[in-house]
């Protein structure tokens, strides 16, 4: 089970190399002695972003979802650079509105899930559209895709997510053994 002869240009190896490099950088930024909860939370955010970014970069622009993720990350970093330069309070207000929209979409998704149970008994096509909406919100870049492309992108997205989880699990286990 351990002896997997990995293709050096496979998605898994590309992601692993990128993610490890990012981890080394994150580790080098903060001194190890400072492990206040705020530092740990910041590091958690950076690691999560690095993981998603590494996977999106490993897929490059070949997929709509990876393009959407990269675009989102780049526009976010551009916004952060601009706000840190000018110190506008307006920019921080826009970031808080994005967090409130995500909570409202989660709330909407919960309602959608409940109603889809009833709709499934009545008409399959109606339930399908409702579930497709929920899927669109989960897959990055899903809003502007038709159903065919959405399903195709979802399959690839799931494959990459499982690879990401697999590699992160291995790294975490290896680190915890040290």
């Amino acid at each position, binding site marked *: 089970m351990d002896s997997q002869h*990995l293709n050096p240009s496979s998605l898994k190896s590309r992601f692993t190399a990128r993610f490890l490099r990012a981890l080394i950088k994150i580790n080098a930024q903060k001194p190890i002695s400072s492990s206040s909860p705020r530092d740990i939370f910041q590091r958690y955010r950076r690691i999560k972003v690095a993981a998603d970014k590494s996977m999106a970069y490993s897929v490059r622009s070949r997929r709509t979802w990876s393009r959407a993720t990269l675009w989102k990350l780049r526009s976010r970093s551009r916004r952060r650079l601009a706000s840190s330069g000018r110190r506008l309070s307006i920019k921080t207000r826009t970031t808080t509105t994005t967090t409130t929209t995500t909570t409202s979409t989660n709330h909407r998704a919960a309602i959608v899930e409940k109603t889809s149970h009833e709709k499934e008994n009545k008409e399959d096509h109606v*339930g399908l559209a409702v579930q497709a909406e929920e899927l669109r919100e989960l897959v990055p870049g899903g809003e502007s895709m038709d159903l065919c492309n959405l399903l195709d992108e979802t399959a690839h997205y799931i494959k990459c997510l499982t690879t990401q989880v697999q590699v*992160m699990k291995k790294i975490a286990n*290896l680190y915890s053994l040290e």
Partner: protein
Amino acid sequence: MSSRRRRESSRTNISEEQITQLLSTLRQLLPEIPHSHSHKASSAAKVLKQTCNYIKTLHREVDDLSDRLSQLLATIDADSAEAAIIRSLLI
């Protein structure tokens, strides 16, 4: 005009076949749940719902692993661990 309408209806027929094909691909990727009586013709909405739940599970796993890694990074030494990990993961 009518030719365009005819072309559009043929396009939707082709995409329905594609949709069923893509759905079966998705169904294979999802983790199997041996609990329920698995009807071969589980509705498309059910497959999509299982897909949504699976993606949410994967997102949550990524969050948990990032959390774990952030705590572990605070406690280990950098360089030697990196080389060992890279070697063991890529060979």
